Structure formats: C-alpha cells, structure tokens
C-alpha cells in the first residue's frame, strides 16, 4: 500500500515542480509549487456546465478516465512488496486500462460534436496508437530478461538475475519510460499543454468543453499519470532489495528529478511539427525494439 500513498503524494507536487522549473529556466518569478493544487481546489468547488449537444457519455467520461488511471496505479509495486493488485500478465492489463481511460476521453470529446474536439480526438487516438508498441516491446524485453510477466515479479527480479546487463536495461528502460510518459501526459515535443491555439492542440482541445469538477478530475488524472510513470522509472532503476527508507528517499528524489527534467526539456526546445510526430513516436518504438532484440541475444533465445 505504501506505493499507492507515495504515488498520490508525489502527484500532489509534480505539476508544481514542472511549472517552477520552467519559470526559473525562463528567468521569471512564477507562482509557488502548490499553485496547480490551489487551482485544482477551486475547480473542485465549482459545478460543471454541460453543452446541450452533449449526452451521457460526455458526463461520465472524466470519471471513468480517472478511475482507470487510479486502477492502473494499483498495479505498481514498491520496494520489493507486491502491488495491491498483481497477477500474471498484469502489464497488459496496465496498458489497456489506461487505453480504456483514453478511449472514454476520446468518445467524450466526440460527443460534443465540435469540429475542434473531433480533430483533437483524432490526433490523440492516432498518436497513442503509435506509442503503444514502444511500451509493450519494452515490457516484453523486461519480461524476457527476468522471466516473469507481472510488475510485482519483474522488478524484484531485475537485479538478482545472473546477468550483468541489468544496469544497461534499467538505463534504456528509464529513457524509454520518460519518452512514453511525455507522450502519455501530452507534453512537449508531441503536444503543448500551455498553448491557447486550438488548431495546434492535441489533448487540450479534447477537454475544451469540460469545466469545473470534471475538469479537475481530468487534471488529477494527468498528475497521477506523471507519478505512475515516475514510479515505473524508479522501479527500473533502484534494486528492490535495498533498505526501505533508502528506497523511499530515492523514490522522492527520482520523482523530483523526473519533474525537473520535464521542465527543462520543455524550456529549451520547440515542439514537433504535427506530421513529424509519427516518425518521432516510431523512433521510440524502434529503440524499444533494439532493446528487445538485445535481450533475445542475451537470454540466448536468438542465435
């Protein structure tokens, strides 16, 4: 259960750290790191306004999306303890419960009948389809390497296996997970969460019609995703056998470094041209594929 508590805790200050990093990098004063949480509190107090063209789907979509993400967070182990929910092949469940959340936010956007939101939904569906292989191939490499198919088994066995290649794997895994997380949470270079230009948006344009409480749920979902991917990164870097307190400290440290890294990446580069995104996403998958092939060679399943 500690894992869940930690994920919820880090989700709390994650967006604030990104914002603060970007402000410092641009030489601005900017708000404190808890500003996104204060905004969230305001939103949660508000009611939602629904357009008369929307139906039931639009109203239930934000709640379903958030619950899917919460459900996914139950699968993440922490410090060698099994996750609250774990079974063989649970990483597939993890990927598709997130995909189900996204599916509902996409049909929720389509439900508004707005041409903007249809455009955004179209882009989101396309790009998330392209990033899916990267995640699976990476996890398949992990599974091959350790011989297990559940998060709660893969990570504890990561560093105890006979092979000396674990470190390389954790680095590749960490790199890929950062990239996947950036796409999943709609950050630069694939999307730009700060823009006011509807025609260039991907995720933001899908939630244009959401307001008040529903919008807060969507934001909470995004913040949770950061923390979930952050803890996956933590799991792939830190050996599960280390002391619990040391692990806890490292968990916090890695989350903070992850948030700062996102902030810095966003400060010093422009976002991709929309038609370059598929190439960019497939490159991430290609790197995962290389990792997979190398695993096959190491585990002597190939050659």
């Amino acid at each position, binding site marked *: 259960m500690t894992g869940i508590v930690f994920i919820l805790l880090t989700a709390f200050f994650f967006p604030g750290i990104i914002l603060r990093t970007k402000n410092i990098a641009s*030489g*601005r004063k900017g708000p404190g790191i808890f500003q996104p949480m204060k905004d969230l509190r305001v939103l949660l107090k508000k009611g939602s306004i629904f357009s008369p063209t929307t139906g039931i789907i639009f109203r239930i979509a934000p709640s379903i999306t958030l619950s899917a993400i919460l459900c996914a967070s139950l699968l993440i182990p922490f410090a060698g303890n099994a996750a609250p929910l774990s079974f063989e092949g649970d990483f597939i469940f993890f990927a598709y419960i997130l995909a189900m959340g996204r599916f509902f936010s996409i049909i929720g956007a389509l439900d508004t009948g707005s041409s903007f939101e249809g*455009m955004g939904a179209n882009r989101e569906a396309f790009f998330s389809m392209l990033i899916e292989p990267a995640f699976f191939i990476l996890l398949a490499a992990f599974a091959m390497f350790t011989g297990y198919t559940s998060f709660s088994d893969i990570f504890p066995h990561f560093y105890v296996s006979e092979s000396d290649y674990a470190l390389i794997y954790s680095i590749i895994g960490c790199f890929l997970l950062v990239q996947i997380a950036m796409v999943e949470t709609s950050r630069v270079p694939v999307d730009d969460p700060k823009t006011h230009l509807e025609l260039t948006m991907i995720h933001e344009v899908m939630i244009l019609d959401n307001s008040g409480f529903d919008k807060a749920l969507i934001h909470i979902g995004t913040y949770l995703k950061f923390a979930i991917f952050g803890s996956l990164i933590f799991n792939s870097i830190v050996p599960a056998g280390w002391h619990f307190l040391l692990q806890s400290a490292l968990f916090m440290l890695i989350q903070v470094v992850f948030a700062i890294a996102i902030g810095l990446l966003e400060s010093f580069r422009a*976002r991709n*041209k929309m038609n370059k995104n598929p190439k960019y996403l497939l490159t991430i998958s290609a790197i995962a594929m290389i990792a997979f092939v190398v695993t096959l060679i190491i585990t002597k399943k190939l050659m």
Partner: protein
Amino acid sequence: MERIKRLSLKNNGPAADLKDIPLLDYEAFYEHVADLLNDEQNHCLSYHGVRSGKNLILYCFMAKDADNSIEVCAHEVAVETAVLKSLSALHPAMHIFEREIHENHGVAFEGHPWMKPLRYPCDRHNRKNTIDTYPFYSIGGEELHEVGVGPVHAGVIEPGHFRFICNGEKVLHLEIQLGYQHRGVETLFTTSDNGLQRAILSESVAGDTAVGHALAHSQLVESLAGIEISADLKAERCIALEMERLAIHIGDTAALCGDVAYQTGQVVCEALRTQVINTTQLWCGNRFGKGLVRPGGTNYPLNDDIAHEILNLLEDTGRRFREITDSIYSSPSVLGRFDEIGTLTRKQGFLAGVTGPSARMCGIVRDIRKTHPFQYYSAINFRPIVLDTGDVLARGMIRNLEAFQSMTLIKELITEWTKMDKRGSSRPVYDYKPKPDTFSISLVEGWRGEICHIAMTGNDGKLSHYRVKDPSMHNWTALALAVRNQEISDFPVCNKSFNLSYCGHDL
C-alpha cells in the same frame, strides 16, 4: 490610342487641385490602369469611390516605383445603372478595392471572381447583406470537413472568422471573413472639424501602428494646409517610426517562438520588447507612442537626455537580441517548425498585392521608405532588405534583419539630429485650414507595410472625404494563399508570422 492626360504627384508633396485629376471614360480608364499594372514596379495604392450627387467618381492612385511618383486618374459613373468590366479579372490585387466599391455603392463589376462583402459598413448599399448571411465558399465531398475558428478567439486576439476546408489535417482552402471591428473610421474623420480629435482617431486606426497611422495623418494634414515642418522634427518622427518597428518586430519574434512552444525565445524577446516600449514611454508618456506624432509640431520634442537613453537602449537590446536570435535561428527544433512552412511565392505575392515585410520576404521589393521617401528618409541612404523564400522562416528572418536595420537607422538619425539646429518649440497645429477643392495623398512605411491616407476637401475648405488603407487589407489574402496545402496545425504560426491587423482592415 489618344494620349492620356496624366496627373503625377510625389509622396509628402503639396496638395493638388481636385479638378486637375483627369476624368477618363471607363474604357480608357480600364486600359490605362490595366496597362500600368502590367509593370511590376507599379501597384495600386487606393481605388475608391466618392459620391458626387447621383454619380460616383472612382479615383485610382497608382504608385510608380520607377520614378518615385504617384499617378492619379478617375472615372465617373452613374451609380444605379453602372455595370463595369472588372479589373480584378486581369489583376487580382484589385479584387479588394472592387469589392469595397461594390459593397459601399452597389456598382456591379462584371467578371469579378470573388464578389463578397468586405466589412459591412452601416451605410452599405445593400442592407440585406449581414454578417450572418456571409456567402462562404464550400466544397462537397465525404472526405472533407470544415473547421470554423472565431470570431471569438482564445487569448487577446481581435475578432475575425476563419473557415477551413480540410482533408484530414491538410488545409485545402481557407476563407477569412472580417468586418467585426468596423467602426466607421473614414466617416469619423470628416464628421468632426476638431484637429485634435482627428489626430487621436488616426492613432486608433490600428492600435499596434499608432505612430505609423498618426504620421500618415499628420503628413496629410500638413500637405493639405501647407504647413512646413523643420528638419529636426522630420528626423524625430522617423526615430519614432523606427522605434515602433523595432518593438513590434521583437514582439513578433517572441510570439513566433511562443506558437512553437520555444519558451526561451519567447520570454527573452518579450522582455526586450518591454525595454523598447518603455523607452518610448519615457519619451512621450505612452508605450505605444500615442500622442508623439501630431500635425505641425510635437508636444514631446526629443531632447539630449532621451536621445542618450535611446542610444543606451539600442546598445543593450541590440546585444541581447542578437544573442537570442542566434540561438532561435540555430535551434533545429525551431527551424523545423519555420522552414518551408506557409510558403507564399513571388507570383502569389503579386497577385495578392502584398506590401511591407510580407512582400519583401518573398522577393518583391516594395518599401515606401525607398521608393516614395517621406520625412527624413529622403536624406538618408536606405536600402530595403529582401528575402526570397517566402516561408515562415523568411518572415521571421526579415523581422530579425529589419529590427537590426531599425537600430542602425535610429543611431544614424540621432547622429544627424544632434548636428541640427533645434527649432523653437513648435506646438501641434489643430485648427488648420486646408485649401478648398484640393486633395492630397500621404504614404508611410509602417512596420506592417504601406499605410496610405488620402483626403479631399470640399469647396468650404473642410474635409469632405477621408480614405485610409492599411497594409492588412491586401495581406490577408496572402495569408489565405500561404496556408493552402499546409497542415491545419501550422495555421497559427503562419498567421502569427504575417501578424495582420483586423481593425486596420475593418476600419
């Protein structure tokens, strides 16, 4: 063909008599104008109708860059029955003028390809045309979809409606419908006789070109009323105009970076722009230079302290701006978003009749400072910057280069200004008396391009007609052409790279 009587003027020259304008019959007028436009060095500054009893006189002002002159000719038609052969069919750049004449006076143009309402003025000919019944272009087909943006936009953007016809992410056609900002500016210039009101009005034609439009207006008034101004005031006005250009170009660079999510470029350029406009504020009390340029004199003469401040600013801003633009235009991720996006070819530019940086970035040499010099520009050596690729990168780059050119010009102007005899304080003149039955034209190269103000006086010596042409009027068409076959997600950066005025168009 009989030889046509010509009336040739100079920009910033004295007023001419209205009766000297040759009144041609339409055949001759049509052929003469079409003939002039065949030469790339000529373009139409204004073509508009003025009511004279039951008839309508159509005046055409043609800029001839080759000999730095402006030729005027006119044609009289009876409004009710008039059906004229359209000039747009031969020279598409004339389309907007003919649309305007049609909308205001109901003159029909045969063979006009795109006869749509322009800005819905209150006294339009056909009151049944309203903004809600705008005839949008449409294409049928299962695979196409339409995306409408605006008139209300996110952020601090003026109102205007954009309608895209897309095939997936690709834009097949963009139609820009404006008119939401129409305030009746031209009419307001003639309803009041108060010179101060007119001066303030001219500053509000387009809020981002306060100095440019105020200068065009002041020049026009001085020409109509025969007011002479001193050389040092002329230099001061040029400094003000270049300061405006510098501030806007830096601000636009910031906005371009913002649109592609390049935060560093955005925040640094925003800060630099603030430094420039704050220096303008130090000079005249207003960051946008309102109140700085007035007919006949100035309330805020330049002094040594302010000149010193400006030079300090240029030193500091110049260095920092060079650093940041070096990093903007060498960053692969930024170049990937600018290069070969939204290309306007030289030919398209001519067809649309573009002016200003939007013309110079696609290889068309049009700069009033060079071809029809006004104020102090006739005394300094000025060479327009011309690029030829016509994409977003060229538009960003020309802003970058012109910003540095403006800095050099300001330094040069201040050096000249220091050497001059300073006149006693010449205060603005608001109770000027224009000569009766005359007209004058005034051209200024604002940061966005050619600003044209034309005024005519009645037999009582009061302004009877006032005409404003903002560079945006033609350049909007160029934007619509530039986004064809582009991705719809690249529209915002294309739009920003032109940075056109809605209220300048709508008047």
